[in-house]
């Protein structure tokens, strides 16, 4: 119980600091009436929570699915696909305010479909190892095409597209928050409903089958739901690394291996990490801004290393 209270308090502190702190000075008394707070900081904070949470949940689910602690929502080729979609949209001058996120989303879904198809061994079984390799291959291939387009294109525009790929929440608005709020509950519920079978899957596919889990449909559901979460995250905020890798491990150290607790904890933990990281990205070098992916790495990796040491120490 105290663990949950602490996590809840962490999220609350993260949300409050994201709204109170920023490169522009807003007096505490004016917070409620400020246009900057109302139309920029609050939606950006909520988007950080939703994106960070989605990446945390996707990371937990994918690590359980492929039974590999290195799995990350972006390891399965989605970032490469999203990047290719975004760069194509810019290179082909697709107009409109929503062109970039839609193209990135389409690219991520394309990569997901391709990896899924490659991962279906013999057309029926989803083999986690093949899935991982297919993800790496599809990611590298689309990354190569992206780099080729960028290096052949005129400097400014497409090189800026690379900056977008490093991740950032500057596209946050009430519109993006609304889209995420409508979209992510479906994959989140699908994954939460799979919590118990995911516990069994951790024992191995055969034991899980013996214990009554319907393994094949489970793997497909988890893969598709986690990928859909990641695709939405990359569409609204680019590729934000480390959240989906580190948060699952940290939450597992604290909450153990039961997915019924792990999934919500990873959502809140991922949200809090991204909130803190984005606040730091906006404030640390103000008036300039850092790519948030750099901050998630700078904050997340040392924290992860400390916990890893303590965990390894406790085991020996």
């Amino acid at each position: 119980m105290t663990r949950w209270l602490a996590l809840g308090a962490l999220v609350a502190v993260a949300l409050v600091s994201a709204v109170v702190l920023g490169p522009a000075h807003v007096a505490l008394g004016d917070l409620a009436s400020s246009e900057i707070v109302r139309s920029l900081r609050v939606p950006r904070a909520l988007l950080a929570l939703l994106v960070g949470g989605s990446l945390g949940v996707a990371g937990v689910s994918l690590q359980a699915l492929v039974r590999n602690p290195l799995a990350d929502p972006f390891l399965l080729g989605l970032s490469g696909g999203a990047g290719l979609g975004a760069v194509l949209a810019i290179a082909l001058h697709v107009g409109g305010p929503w062109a970039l996120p839609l193209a990135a989303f389409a690219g991520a879904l394309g990569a997901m479909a391709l990896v899924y198809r490659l991962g279906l061994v013999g057309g029926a079984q989803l083999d986690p190892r093949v899935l991982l390799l297919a993800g790496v291959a599809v990611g590298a291939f689309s990354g190569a095409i992206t780099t080729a387009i960028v290096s052949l294109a005129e400097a400014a525009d497409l090189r800026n597209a690379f900056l977008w790929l490093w991740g950032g929440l500057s596209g946050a608005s009430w519109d993006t928050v609304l889209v995420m709020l409508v979209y992510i509950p479906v994959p989140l519920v699908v994954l939460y409903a799979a919590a118990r079978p995911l516990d069994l899957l951790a024992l191995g596919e055969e034991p899980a089958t013996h214990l009554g889990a319907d393994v094949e449909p489970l793997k497909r559901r988890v893969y598709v739901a986690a990928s859909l979460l990641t695709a939405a995250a990359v569409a609204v905020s680019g590729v934000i690394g480390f959240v989906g890798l580190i948060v699952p491990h940290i939450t597992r150290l604290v909450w153990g291996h039961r997915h019924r607790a792990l999934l919500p904890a990873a959502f809140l933990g991922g949200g809090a990490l991204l909130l803190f990281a984005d606040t730091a990205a906006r404030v640390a070098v103000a008036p300039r801004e850092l790519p948030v992916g750099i901050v998630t790495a700078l904050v997340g990796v040392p924290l992860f290393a400390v916990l890893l040491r303590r965990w390894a120490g406790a085991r020996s």
Partner: protein
Amino acid sequence: MRGLLVASLLAVACRPPADRPSAALPAHRIVSLAPSSTELLFALGAGDQLVGRTTWCRYPPAALQVPDVGDGLNPNIEAIAARRPDLVVLYRSPLNETAKTQLARLGIPAVTLAQDRLEDIGRAARELGRLTGHEAAGDSIGAALDALLGMPAPAPIARVAFVVWDNPPMVIGGGSYLDQLATLAGGANVFHDLAAASATVSIETIVARNPDVILVLSDSSAPPAYSGRREWRAIRAVREQRFIMLRADLFGRPSPTAPAAVAALRRALEARTK
């Protein structure tokens, strides 16, 4: 890598390495590897001495008749050598210093010219004038740009921001050519305090600095796509659709047309602030 190998083989086979082989001036076969140098060479009257340009050299339109040798930031030494130039003009960057050394091994003279700020153009004009036998033209362009730089900056008539990219939002800072043009035209760049030529900032920083006008590098007259997004409408100038479009031929690169660019920006700012 292959270019490098061929280059070093050629160097061993054909010619002794030359450190500063500037024997035959003026140059008659010039390869220009920066859009601003290409434009400058045409302005000097050396356009017909050009035998190579980059893919991105589009001004003046006559430049398109010059053979394309590829990219200027990562030059293809082999393609350049094939044009048998007696002078290669490079943009000054660490990578291009390497290219200059490689060219020197082939006995091809090369110069690297800084082309980042207004004061660089006059200097480059004089240097290229000397190297191409158009000294008088070089001096005259140099003098015109010196006069522009020597002008006392007018009192600002509008606060401006150059927004060059929307996601992440990127603006032009004080260490840039465009900032200099704006200052001379009576536009106070609200990001003048940023020392870098360009920088990523938060939308809320643009809101807080509240520019009167947003300057956009674009040949189209349509407002930029981000002006339809809700988060950008927190900026007053975006809400009120106060954009000034800057044509690429005048504003796209440091150029001897800077006086005309300043005058055009001045007129646009006056029209906007009436």
